[in-house]
């Protein structure tokens, strides 16, 4: 079962623009990760944010986490056509329990 819900379900932007996607959840977590999935491929880890962190940066990625609101956001700055993919948040509970969100499908138009 899905533990996280993402919005928007789909997002279409022009190359160079920023893309923001959000993940909301209901359970308590130890940390949260974001993954990317190109069409027909497996998921690839992007970034981890611990439950005691509020913001994390990695290259063009910026992740925020608000545990009081049980939500996280992923911002991709200066998007490129190659960023076209589906993005999933993963909630990490105790004991190596990984549960994925419903995903946001991002299309970056050249």
């Amino acid at each position: 079962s899905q533990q996280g819900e993402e919005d928007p379900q789909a997002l279409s932007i022009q190359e160079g623009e920023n893309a923001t996607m959000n993940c909301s959840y209901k359970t308590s977590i130890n940390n949260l990760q974001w993954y990317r999935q190109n069409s027909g491929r497996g998921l690839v880890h992007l970034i981890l944010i611990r439950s005691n962190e509020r913001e994390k940066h990695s290259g063009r990625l910026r992740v925020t986490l608000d545990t009081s609101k049980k939500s996280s956001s992923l911002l991709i700055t200066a998007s490129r056509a190659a960023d076209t993919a589906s993005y999933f948040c993963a909630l990490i509970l105790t004991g190596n329990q990984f549960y994925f969100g419903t995903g946001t499908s991002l299309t970056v138009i050249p």
Partner: protein
Amino acid sequence: EAGVVQSPRYKIIEKKQPVAFWCNPISGHNTLYWYLQNLGQGPELLIRYENEEAVDDSQLPKDRFSAERLKGVDSTLKIQPAELGDSAVYLCASSLGGLTGELFFGEGSRLTVL
């Protein structure tokens, strides 16, 4: 180093037929996951192994699905008999474990049940 290897990549079968998927995780990864992914959805956990022990199989439909991880390395997921609703991508992932460990995914096995 090789990543997570899954086979077959694609499988088409008639309903009521059996099917099996195989996964070879990254060497040294003790934790192995099987996920099911329907089109346009996120992965849903089927079963998680710590070494050879299935520690979380609460979402595995045990009437028709079975899994094993002999010797704590390779794993096989079986469906018998397959139903039309089983058409999906079956993803295998492995991890070193720990709360900050990331999952490494295989390319998935796409099943079509006719």
